């Protein structure tokens, strides 16, 4: 006897195409012109921030950095779909999501200077810390969502993982747990086609990453990750339907336009032609085309925005460079109390000026 156990189809959602044309039937009805202008500005801010981090890194003023250029629509679309009380669980490339959720930009520069203090989120930012071990954040997102549900909060968790991250056991375990515990969780795969030098095609022979949801019994869909409106729509509708339909896995198809990190050299493993093919699909360009055609954007507004954002970023750098850390904070923050044996070690280190 054969029984049908799942529906093997994956929806692919695109609302705003590469030419800036909108599919009116799919256009989310809670989006107005102002919201789209806001999306555009945040995407530009994320890209400007990215450029600043890269230049600071080249000057030796911040440590290794993982740029997000090309992935702005996935990050900003999701960030603006989140409600104030929702929680963000990032991997390590989601600076754009943080920025659009009001996380202070100077914190990234402080962390970039090598201080843990940059990872301390101001209250109300509702985010976990950057997770460097790929995929390790995914089970946390399940637990966090469980806690929100347990405490009867009207809030959801939005978690990010890369295409590479979907190969980790933690990812599979988290998707499975999420369905079983029926938690309010939206999992976003920021599929930028690369995990350092390993292309998406070598990560799995599965046709889509979204279909990994099926094995866990949860919902899965694909979205044009360079279409900020489609990402916004998928994530906001996903959040709204969590209580009735359970967790959801959304694969955003985008492209890593730059290096993996500042320690990487992609000329070793990828063809510039592959990168060039994605240039016309730029997530920012198509929104600009759309807004300009509607008469909502022009060079004057662009110039004004660029100047404002440059100032905001430069002020944040200045603030971060004025930050002074205290090495004693290493001891004070390890536990909720300082054990005697650690206090002795601290005193010894302080007396020796940490051997500097």
């Amino acid at each position: 006897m054969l029984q049908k156990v799942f529906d093997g189809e994956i929806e692919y959602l695109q609302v705003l195409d590469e030419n800036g044309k909108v599919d009116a039937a799919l256009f989310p009805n809670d989006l107005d012109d102002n919201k789209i202008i806001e999306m555009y500005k945040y995407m530009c801010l994320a890209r400007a921030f990215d450029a600043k981090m890269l230049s600071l890194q080249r000057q030796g003023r911040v440590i290794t950095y993982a740029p997000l250029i090309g992935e702005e629509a996935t990050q900003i679309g999701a960030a603006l779909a989140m409600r104030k009380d929702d929680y963000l669980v990032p991997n390590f490339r989601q600076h754009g999501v943080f920025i659009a959720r009001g996380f202070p930009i100077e914190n990234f520069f402080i962390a970039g200077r090598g201080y843990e203090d940059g990872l301390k989120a101001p209250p109300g930012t509702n985010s976990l810390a950057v997770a460097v071990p790929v995929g390790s954040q995914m089970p946390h997102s399940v637990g966090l969502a469980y806690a929100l549900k347990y405490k009867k909060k009207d809030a959801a968790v939005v978690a990010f993982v890369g295409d590479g991250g979907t190969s980790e056991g933690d990812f599979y375990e988290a998707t499975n747990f999420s369905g079983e515990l029926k938690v309010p969780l939206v999992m976003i795969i920021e599929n930028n086609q690369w995990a350092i030098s390993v292309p998406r095609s070598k990560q799995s022979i599965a046709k889509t990453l979204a279909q990994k949801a099926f094995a866990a019994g949860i919902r899965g869909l694909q979205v044009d990750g360079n279409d900020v409106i489609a990402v916004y729509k998928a994530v906001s509708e996903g959040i709204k339907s969590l209580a009735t339909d359970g967790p959801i896995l959304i694969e955003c198809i985008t492209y890593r336009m730059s290096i993996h990190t500042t320690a990487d050299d992609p000329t070793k493993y990828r063809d510039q032609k592959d990168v060039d093919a994605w240039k016309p699909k730029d997530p920012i360009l198509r929104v600009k085309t759309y807004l300009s055609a509607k008469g909502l954007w022009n060079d004057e507004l662009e110039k004004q925005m660029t100047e404002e954002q440059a100032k905001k970023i430069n002020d944040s750098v200045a603030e971060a460079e004025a930050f002074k850390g205290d090495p004693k904070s290493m001891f004070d923050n390890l536990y909720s109390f300082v054990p005697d044996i650690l206090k002795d070690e601290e005193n010894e280190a302080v007396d020796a000026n940490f051997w500097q």
Partner: protein
Amino acid sequence: MQMNMVSALNNALDLAMQENEDVVLLGEDVGEDGGVFRVTDGLIKKYGENRVIDTPLAESGIIGTAIGMALGGLHPVPEIQFAGFMYLGYSQLINHAARYRERTRSGLSVPMVVRTPVGGGIRALEHHSESPEVLYSYGGGLIVVEPSNPYDAKGLMMKALHLKDPVIFLEPTKLYRLFKQDVPEESYEVDIGKANIIRAGEDLTIITYGTMVPIVNDVVSQKHVDAEIIDLRTINPLDEKTILDSVKKTGKAMIVHEASLSFGVGAEIAARISEKALYELDAPIIRVASLDLPYPFPAYENYYMPNAKKVGAAIDRLLTM
């Protein structure tokens, strides 16, 4: 030929793959990219995708698959991109690699060499600077080596690939390209389980390994003290004899490592010296190590790790005791 540690290791892997077709490499980015530190550079071109495998991103999968390959008669060399990510494969290492031979009374064994960069001082992101050697040494079943120079790196790698055991091969990132050495182009072995006296001396014994070797060496030469320096090279099994012989001669022992102080390799060595040579010592045993904290973000890494000043002060203290 003049080689740095990266080229010495690359050369060792190349020779081992030439001499034994069961040697296969697997890991994240080990193919076209040649590994993020280029240790496997060019090997995919030479040996093909069947022998140099770019795996999906999953450390438990990499190590578990390598164990299966070894049980099936291959001699895999899994690379874990940074030691901080090897914990994902820890269960496979401790529950299987370390026990297979024992549990089957040598019926099945796991010949493999797990390579991973260790250690800090490189201004890296979180989890890229760990020194986890004690975690693999504890409990038995895994051989743990950590070279401090290109010559030893190549010889230990060749030796590891000639053993029928699971070897955890820790490569100090900071030393990868720090200096070059004359390294023979042909195959040779450096003994596993044998420490190296890199400087003979009479007044004190300094036992160290990995990233701390060049620092200890520099401090000793600058201070003109007559120290005997032992580079462990193998952490498990420990070369107890070389340590005890030296300590009995000098009467003073100091252990220097980059890993944290408490419950570390230094504790094991100090315990053995006190059990077996206490009456031949004329001063307490001193350990110099990192603070008992997780490896910090880069701003304070130089506050966290032992440096020349800290090592120098410890030598002064020991010599005046």
